[in-house]
């Protein structure tokens, strides 16, 4: 990795962490309450991020300015089993 890449990664990571903290997603109750349907902040946060990113990504791609990233591979059993294990951890300790 070049120095430029490291600096950019740091800055973008800071943006990511800042957004997570300000949405309150660093706290246990915010994460677990989405599974109790008493506080949907996680879903609101994720879906807004998806919409904004989709709009930006596909507009820029349509203008021919950027390439679409390589999407994660779909292996239904792996994705599903991983998600099932992941959900237990996420709901139990809220991270």
């Amino acid at each position: 990795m070049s120095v430029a890449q490291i600096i950019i990664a740091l800055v973008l990571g800071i943006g990511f962490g800042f957004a997570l903290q300000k949405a309150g997603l660093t706290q246990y109750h915010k994460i677990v309450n989405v599974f109790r349907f008493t506080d949907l902040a996680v879903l609101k946060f994720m879906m807004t991020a998806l919409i904004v990113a989709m709009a930006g990504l596909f507009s820029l791609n349509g203008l021919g300015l950027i390439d679409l990233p390589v999407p994660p591979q779909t292996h239904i059993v792996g994705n599903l089993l991983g998600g099932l294990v992941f959900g237990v951890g996420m709901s139990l300790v809220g991270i």
Partner: protein
Amino acid sequence: MKQIIGYIRKDQWSPYVAGSLLGLVAVLIAVVSTVFRDPSIALGASGAFESILGGLTQLVSPDWIAKNLYFKAVRLPGLTWEVVMLFGIFVGGALGAISSRTWKLRWMPDKQWAEAFGQSRVTRWVLVFLGAILLEYGAGMAGGCTSGLAIWGGLQLAPAAFVFMGGMFATGILTALLVYRRRY
């Protein structure tokens, strides 16, 4: 301008504003990936732990890493884009708390944890350790976590993201039911 700074300093943003910031970060990552012509530049967090561990193992036994299929085909060991970004996430989270003057070191999470699991610090740390193992193992199996798979994959409508989210919510709700029982 004063209002904007005032909003930035608020303890909690609307999730829609914070989500927009993450969406913007995701678009910028795609731009950077195009500029450097490097498809490994992506949004994600869980893979960084594997890369760090792989990099450390490489110092001790490089042969083992060289032969390991996972570190050859799935995730590169050592200092990758995700590792640097993970460090940035920590810094960004701390900056977020500092900006609202709520930054402090704590042994225990919020009130709701104590209501569900009691006041014991040992319980908290043991459960977090076990929970984090499940998270990392699950993310490794699925090929990403909430950010790397659900968001980065979801924004391209990759089926993997939605299969993962379905699984995550199924057991997440079940676990919350078991923990909270009547108070669910």
